[in-house]
């Protein structure tokens, strides 16, 4: 007998709406059970993907640990916009030390808790992509290698947004930043550079590595909860669109995160002990152009005659991701 699967897609977004979900699966922004680890009133830009990601990741971590959590933060947007003292948005124990040392500071907190026999309290480290893939990379790799009991979360907005949108090792090829200008024969960031940190993390054989986007907050929450079932070093890499740095509408943050995943440009997967154990397959595959066009950082690819050659190379990167992780939509 043949089975017909029914799709409950909202018009346009292809996301499943709350009304079609069971109570347990619904997204609830405000509830008494929520910690609001990163509380309202902070100074993030409208549509900030990092604020959204951090709020959901940390609240999920608080739920997973019964509120026994300490967070260590690298310097960056998340640190600056959350603590314009005497105001602080943090309702959890929170420490900021420096830009490049958050993984090591988190190691220190975990070591102190272990020495004190406080195995009920867990540690989360967090940084942007600059603090993770560039300046904090040595400390992060050290923390991974020692398998310290820290969940480190990178909120990746693909550049140094706090200092005025400069290129990082997480900036995609062709993207315009203040230090990868959209000029010359090869405008924007160059091809063949950058670090794929989730794969580098996997190469450390740590218990858990996952990627997520702010387009699927339940997936993000589930991965935080999964991460908290392990002890040792864990890494979560969250794509968080930046309206300012990407030159995108504030209302498009979630849409862009979804298009990044649905184009295959940002692969969403999870891995345990160095082996991929699950992928979030693409539901409706889109070309990278659909993802790139709404972002002014890629405007030079589409103005005038455009640069179809460069778009094709970006599409090839997305195709390679789809191939590598098996992201292609399931056969109907």
């Amino acid at each position, binding site marked *: 007998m043949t089975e017909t699967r029914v799709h409950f897609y909202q018009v346009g977004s292809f996301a499943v709406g709350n009304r079609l979900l069971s109570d347990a699966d619904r997204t609830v922004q405000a509830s008494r059970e929520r910690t609001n680890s990163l509380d309202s009133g902070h100074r993030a830009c409208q549509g900030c993907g990092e604020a959204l990601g951090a709020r959901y990741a940390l609240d999920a971590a608080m739920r997973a640990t019964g*509120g*026994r*959590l*300490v967070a*260590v*933060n690298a310097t960056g947007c998340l*640190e*600056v916009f959350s*603590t*314009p*003292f005497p105001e*602080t948005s*943090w*309702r*959890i*124990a*929170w*420490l*900021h*030390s*420096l830009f*490049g*040392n958050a993984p*090591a*500071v*988190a*190691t*220190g*907190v*975990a*070591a*102190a*808790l*272990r*020495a*004190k*026999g406080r195995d009920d*309290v867990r540690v989360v480290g967090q940084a942007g992509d600059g603090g993770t893939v560039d300046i904090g990379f*040595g*400390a992060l*790799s*050290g923390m991974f*290698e*020692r398998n310290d009991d820290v969940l480190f979360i990178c909120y990746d907005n693909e550049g140094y947004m706090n200092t005025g949108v400069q290129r990082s090792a997480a900036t995609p090829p062709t993207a315009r930043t203040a230090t990868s200008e959209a000029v010359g024969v090869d405008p924007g960031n160059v091809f063949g550079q950058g670090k794929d940190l989730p794969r580098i993390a996997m190469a450390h054989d740590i218990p858990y590595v996952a990627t997520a986007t702010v387009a699927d907050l339940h997936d993000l929450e589930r991965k935080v909860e999964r991460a908290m079932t392990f002890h040792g070093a864990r890494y979560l890499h969250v794509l968080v669109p930046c309206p300012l740095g990407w030159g995108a509408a504030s209302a498009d943050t979630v849409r862009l995160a979804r298009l990044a995943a649905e184009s295959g440009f940002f692969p969403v997967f999870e891995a345990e002990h160095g082996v991929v154990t699950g992928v979030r397959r693409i539901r409706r595959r889109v070309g990278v152009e659909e993802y790139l066009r709404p972002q002014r950082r890629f405007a030079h690819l589409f103005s005038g005659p455009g640069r179809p050659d460069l778009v094709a190379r970006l599409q090839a990167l997305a195709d390679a991701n789809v191939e590598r992780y098996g992201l292609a939509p399931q056969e109907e």
Partner: protein
Amino acid sequence: MLQQLEGSRAVAETVARCRPEVVCAYPISPQTHIIEAIGAMVKDGRLAPCEFINVESEYAAMSVSIGASAAGARTYTATASQGLLFMIEAVYNAAGLGLPVVMTLANRAIGAPINIWNDHSDAMAVRDAGWIQLFAETNQEAADLHVQAFRLAETLSVPVMVCMDGFILTHAVEAVDLIDQAVVDSFLPPYEPRQVLDPDDPVSIGAMVGPEAFEEVRYLAHLRQLDALELIPEVAEEFAALTGRVSGGLLHPYRLEDADTVIVAMGSVLGTIKDAVDARRGAGERVGVLGVTAFRPFPVAAVADALAGARRVIVVEKAFSLGMGGVLATDVATASPASGHDLATVVAGLGGRPITRRDVEGILERSAQGTLPRLSFLNLDDDVVARERARMAASRRSGPFAENVLRDLATGGAHR
């Protein structure tokens, strides 16, 4: 009970008796023996509970210390030279956050040219970081200072650096009386932090501070240093009452009564200087020594008092500020700006060059004759310097000058 112990071993045994809960280690000569010994004590269970963490850099060593201390643990690490410079951002940060980390600095020169031997350039590089910096004269004092360091650090919420001369102290085997565990326990109560990362009472630590409050926050840190000026002698006295040993304090004055010429110095060279002073005293000269134990905070008033009767002051120091001169000497000058006495700086012992009793007596002779310049470099080979200057003048591509000097020395000046 006196034992023959390597300086590093004496420090490691003493630190262990202070019951640190987190110790970070990254190898750099000449401090490695300290952390190796502590690591073994953690591994065999003698030191417990304690987490010993092999980090990937000195930057991580201080960063892990920051996290551990902020979570309420008694925290210790050790470094030297390039290692201190590599962690310098975190060194400032630990002080700025008010975290009572204790660190041994096995004083060593800074490159280039790379040099593993002793001088005080490393300590001077973090002079303004907000750490208390105590200089040990002997291995006994180095060991004892660590017990006092934890007490000072945790009382004031200020990190403390115990500076001991690399190799000269760290690797020297001397008679040391290790402090009893019971004495340490009575002297050093469990650490009670002013601020701690606690899920039951969450606070935000390390917020951004703008111009509306930054000066006050920094001034409060300065006041804690001034508080340390009061506390350092008190702690040393209490320590002396318990152990019968004079270790620490602000200054070590020696034969200053009626002295008209006083040498000011820090660290292990004080022993040599005292021998020289004893010899000159024997010859009827009125000379004395002022050992500076607390370099930061700098005891301006106490130094001024100690030097009040001196006509000539000679600062012998193992570091200098290029393009300026003495570092310690500048502070000494500040301590008695109006005295008008002749202040000379002798830069000595750079990169491990020995300072002998003969050298010190020579300094005192030149001072007595009035031929000691305001700034001089002990045993500087002027000929080698002149020949390299000539090479540089003769050819644009004169090459790397450190290597030229070495080749010059090896060929007895024949190198062109």
